[in-house]
C-alpha cells in the first residue's frame, strides 16, 4: 500500500423501504466504475441482503461483511469482483445474521480501511432508522437520500435528513426516484419543486419510473449500462455529478425515445 488512497464514503439511505436504495447503490457504484473510478459497494442490510442479487453476484459469495468484521477472513477475501468491471467490488451482507452482528465502531473501522483501497465506498443502507441505519452511516463522509414522489416517502426522507444532521453528516444530496412525468403533468403526483421545497437539500438527480429497471434488476445487470434506457441515462448523469461535473437535469418530457415514438405514431397512426 505505497500510495494509500483517501476515498470518499457515501451512504445511500431513505428511511422508507422500497424507494430504490439498492437500485441506486448498484447503479451509482457501476456508473462510477464506468467512469474509471475504483469502487466498492457495501451491503449493510444484514439479514435482508439484496445488493448481490441486483448486481448479479449472488452465486460468488463465500464470505460476507460479518466474516470480515469478525475477522473470520481477510478483507480481500470478502470482496467480490464484479463480472463486468475490474475496478468494481462488492462486499455482501450476511443473510443468516441480524443487524446486531455489526457495531457502528466496527463499521467505521471497516469503511476507513476500504477508503484506503478505493476511490469510492458506496454503502447501501437498510430501511428504517434503527441499528442497521446507524451502522450504515457510521463511516460515511456524505449521504445521498433517495425518495419517491409520495408524501410518505418524503416524510421519512425528512426525518432521516434530521437524523443525519444530528450525527454531523451535513448537506446530504437528494435523488428523486420513480417519477412519472404524465402524472406530474396531470397534477396527480408531487413535482420536483414541491419535494425540494419541503426537504430543502441539493438535488443530485431525478430518475423516471422505467420498466427497464425491473428488467435489469431481474437480470442482475444495473440499468446504468443500458445505453437506451431513460433511467440508465439518469443514473449516468447522477454519477457524473458525483465526480463534480456539471450536468443538466434530465428533461423527462422531451426525451429521444419520446420523439421517436411520436414519429412512429404519426407514421403508423397507432
Amino acid at each position: 500500500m505505497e500510495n494509500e488512497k483517501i476515498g470518499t464514503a457515501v451512504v445511500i439511505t431513505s428511511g422508507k423501504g422500497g424507494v430504490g436504495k439498492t437500485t441506486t447503490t448498484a447503479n451509482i457504484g457501476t456508473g462510477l466504475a464506468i467512469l474509471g473510478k475504483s469502487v466498492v459497494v457495501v451491503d449493510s442490510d444484514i439479514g435482508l441482503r439484496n445488493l448481490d442479487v441486483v448486481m448479479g453476484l449472488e452465486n460468488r459469495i463465500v464470505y460476507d461483511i460479518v466474516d470480515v468484521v469478525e475477522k473470520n477472513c481477510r478483507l480481500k477475501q470478502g470482496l467480490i469482483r464484479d463480472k463486468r468491471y475490474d475496478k468494481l467490488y462488492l462486499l455482501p451482507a450476511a443473510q443468516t445474521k441480524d443487524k446486531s452482528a455489526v457495531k457502528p465502531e466496527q463499521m467505521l473501522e471497516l469503511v476507513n480501511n476500504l477508503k484506503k483501497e478505493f476511490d469510492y465506498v458506496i454503502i447501501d443502507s437498510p430501511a428504517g432508522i434503527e441499528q442497521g441505519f446507524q451502522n450504515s452511516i457510521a463511516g460515511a463522509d456524505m449521504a445521498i437520500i433517495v425518495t419517491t414522489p409520495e408524501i410518505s416517502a418524503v416524510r421519512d426522507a425528512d426525518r432521516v435528513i434530521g437524523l443525519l444532521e444530528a450525527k454531523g453528516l451535513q448537506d446530504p444530496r437528494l435523488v428523486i426516484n420513480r417519477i412519472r412525468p404524465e402524472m406530474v403533468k396531470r397534477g396527480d403526483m408531487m413535482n420536483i419543486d414541491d419535494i425540494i421545497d419541503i426537504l430543502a437539500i441539493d438535488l443530485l438527480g431525478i430518475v423516471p419510473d422505467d420498466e427497464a429497471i425491473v428488467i435489469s434488476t431481474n437480470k442482475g445487470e444495473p440499468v446504468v449500462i443500458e445505453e437506451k434506457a431513460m433511467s440508465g441515462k439518469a443514473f449516468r448523469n447522477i454519477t457524473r455529478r458525483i465526480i463534480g461535473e456539471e450536468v443538466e437535469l434530465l428533461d423527462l418530457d422531451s426525451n429521444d425515445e419520446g420523439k421517436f415514438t411520436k414519429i412512429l405514431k404519426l407514421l403508423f397512426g397507432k
Partner: protein
Amino acid sequence: MKDDVITFKGVKEGIFIDIKSGNLHLVKEELDEKLKDSIVFFQGAKLLGVRGRNLSHMEINEIKSIIKDKYNLSISEEGLPEYLNEEDILDDLKESFNNPLADNDIFQGIEEGMTKFINGTLRSGQVVEYSGNIVIVGDVNPGALIKAKGNIVVLGTLRGVAHAGIDGNLEAIVAAYNLQPTQLRIADKIARPPDENIISYKLPEVAKVHGGEVMIEPYLPKK
C-alpha cells in the same frame, strides 16, 4: 512471523532450542541473530539439545555443531527429556484437528451413518448444520444454507447454497430432485453455475467431486 522460527524454551532440566521451520537457511540466520545478542545468557545455562520436527537428523546435527563450534556452547550429554517427545505427538494431534482435511477424523458415515431429516421448506436466511447426512423433504430457497459433514439430499428444488462434507470428505454428494443451486460446495471445493443461462434437464441430478472439480450428472439417466 520471524519469532516462530526459533524459540528457546526452559524446562526444569535446563533449556532447549525449539525449531518450527523446516527451512535450514532461515533457521541458521535466525540462530545467528538470537545467539549474537544474548550469548552471555546461554553460556551460563545448561543446553539440553535441539528439537526440530520439520528438520532431518543431519540438519539437526549441523545446527548442533554450529552451536558448539561457532559459539562455544556445550550441549549436555543427557539430551532432551523423554516427555518432550510426547508433547510432539500431542502437538501433531492438535494440528490435525485444526486441519479439517486430515484423513483420520473426517466424517465417514456417507454410506451409512447419522442422518437428519427436515420436513418443510428452508427459506432465505435459514441455516441447517449437522454432523452427519441431511435430507430435506421440501425445497431449499435462495439465501438458505445447508451444511453437512456427510451427504445432502433434497427431495424438492435446491436453489440455495449446499455444502456437503464440511469437514473434508470429498466423497460426499449433493443430490436433488431439481438441482438449481446458487452455489455448491463439497469439502473445500466450491462451484457455481455459469453466468450464461443453462438448459435445465428437468431430471434429478447429483453433484460429486471428480478430478478435483464438482461435477453434476443425472442420477436416473434412463428416464
